């Protein structure tokens, strides 16, 4: 089983990239949700 470590490395790197990207999207999304809550609170307070 020559080169098996290369294959594993390639698959790991691939999944890692997708995973990190998905996490980053989710994180940005939650920051924006907080921002929306904050802005909405601000707007209702101003009324």
């Amino acid at each position, binding site marked *: 089983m*020559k*080169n*098996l470590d*290369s*294959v594993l490395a390639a698959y790991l790197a691939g999944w890692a*990239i997708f995973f990190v990207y998905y996490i980053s999207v989710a994180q940005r999304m939650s920051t*924006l949700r907080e921002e929306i809550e904050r*802005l909405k609170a601000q707007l209702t307070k101003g009324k």
Partner: protein
Amino acid sequence: MLKSALKATILFALIAVTAYLAFYYAPIEKSMGVIQKIFYLHISCAFSAFVAFGTCFYANLRYVFTRAPKSDWLAVSAAEVGLAFISVVLITGPIWAHPVWGIWWTWDARLTLTFVLGLLYVSYLLLRSMIEEPDKRALFSALFGIFAFLDVPLVYFSIRWWRTQHPQPVILGGPGSGLEPRMRVSYLLMWGALTGLLILLLSARYKLEALRASVDDLRREAEVR
């Protein structure tokens, strides 16, 4: 929330199954050995990346003619997701090439095209971050995206005439390029799984962009008061 978590779980299960198939079900290729298994991921990712960039081009064109903000959201999502896929292609490629060709990188047509394509879309995203006003950002980045996509076949042919070393396509290649049936099953499943991943990432990124637009709206409203 639950629905998206469910979708993600199904997709990851699918990916796990395909990885299992690629490793244990598909036979080991005769001339290349076990290293050929990288292809399942590599080729499917390349396909998804091109689909993503094609989607970006379509959204760019649509934006220029309809000026619907939704097209712009789709365009930026597709460009970013395409870049994620293309970086996987660019990383798995050299890992395959090193044991087989003895070098990490060579300036062959398809490799260089992939690299230049990645660079063009990095420029696209950079350009977006450099224009503040949403309408202007959408329009000018869409126009750049159209020009960039038109460049793709030109880059490909110019480098192809210049030099080429990439292995010929085995899936859609000419006669004699047939695939072992178990390999075909693995390819098809991996391709399906990555297309699913493409759709998942695309819709997540699209929702993010929609949220961003509503934050901008709220901000403007807050400023008016």
